[in-house]
């Protein structure tokens, strides 16, 4: 009992330390935001970074963005489509579990990204409504594109296979990838059975 208390106090202290450190970092970052950000952007990307892709995506606001915009924070990324009834909600739920676990650890500087297989149906408006319906936090980005070429590119770098089947559904691999702050894959979960802890291990 006693040791439990002590360890929980230590854990709480550690949490406070992490949170305050994060706060301090944020402050620091705000003061020196411009030069620091500039430096990060101009440094050449690693050869293995998926941000080398020039794919142009659309966010839920309809703005065009490149993947490189995600640079700077670790990313948990997968692909889905909003009309999907079976596996996609599972992928999303697992990613939300990771988010929850990380939040418990006091780690909030991680992005969660889903890219749509279905640019035709998943317009920015549809994504926006979906994010609302699924209660996605501000750590999330739902992305789509103007043509089928783009999801094919993203799938190619993530090792995801997919095809459109009758009735507008997609068959696809179940792969969730963790990217480091530079967009280099640091690990992934293949298949539906997985513990969020295993994905968290890959987050730097």
């Amino acid at each position, binding site marked *: 009992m006693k040791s439990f208390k002590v360890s929980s106090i230590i854990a709480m202290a550690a949490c406070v330390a992490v949170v305050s450190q994060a706060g301090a970092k944020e402050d620091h970052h705000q003061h020196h935001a411009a030069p620091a950000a500039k430096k990060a952007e101009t440094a050449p990307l690693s050869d*293995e970074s998926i941000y080398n892709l020039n794919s142009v995506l659309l966010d839920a606001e309809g703005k065009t963005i490149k993947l490189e915009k995600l640079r700077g924070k670790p990313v948990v990324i997968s692909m889905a489509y909003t009309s999907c009834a079976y596996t996609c909600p599972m992928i999303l739920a697992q990613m939300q579990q990771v988010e929850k676990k990380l939040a418990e650890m006091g780690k909030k500087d991680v992005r969660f990204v889903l890219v749509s297989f279905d640019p035709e149906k998943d317009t920015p408006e549809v994504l926006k409504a979906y994010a609302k319906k699924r209660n996605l936090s501000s750590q999330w980005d739902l992305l789509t594109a103007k043509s089928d070429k783009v999801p094919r590119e993203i799938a*190619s770098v993530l*090792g995801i296979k997919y095809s459109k089947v009758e009735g507008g559904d997609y068959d696809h691999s179940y792969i969730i990838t963790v990217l480091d702050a530079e967009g280099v894959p640091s690990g992934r979960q*293949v298949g*539906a059975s997985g513990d969020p802890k295993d994905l968290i291990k890959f987050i730097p």
Partner: protein
Amino acid sequence: MGGLIRCLLLAAVLCTEPTWAAQDILVPAGEFKMPAKLNQKNLKVASFYIDSHPVTNAEFLEFVRQNPEWRKSKVKKLFADKSYLNYWVSDLKFGDKVMAASPVVRVSWFAAREYCAWKGQRLPSTNEWEYVALRPINNETEIKTLILEWYGRGAEWPLSNVNKSSPNNLGVHDMHGLIWEWVEDFNTSLVTGESRADGGLDKDLFCGAGASGAADPADYAAFMRFAFRSSLQAKYTVQNLGFRCAKNR
């Protein structure tokens, strides 16, 4: 006089133009049944253009000359594995002159795609490729014999020139018998299911051992192509894997 000059110009063009320059072949719209699939349904293909032969080493050299980021010393690891163009002696030399007209291989899907985009084209889709590949060469029997004989023969090196074998009835060469080719949606076929959803994907694609229902020996060849495609990753480069480009009509 003008006519004479035009004539001379034409002659000059004909002389300097390499004999292996690819032509855009117009493929008429139509329907087909994908080989090696059970529960076959007719698939519709819109009309499009396809190169008369796979991209050659000489053609690819021009691409890397103008696009330095695709030279083998410069290409990013994300876009090609270590064996990218590994038979070329250097960045801008593919080695022996005789290879100029043989198909470029050891190129990744990304490189193939960039090449086609540079040409104002794109990679063909699996459906488009298979649709053209079904077209007979001279007569039906010949194509099947050719395919099965080729698949049984094993790898050849160096590869022979493009356009050496007879074209199919559209005028398209080397769909079979020379190399395997990248398609835009190569990562469509999933032979092993990774989740419940995946399991559904190729349940209608029968495996070699259980293919007793295959009425057509060409199905075996098509099955091999599906299996091969599903084993690929976009950055892989393979000794007998090249590509050709297509274009919307």
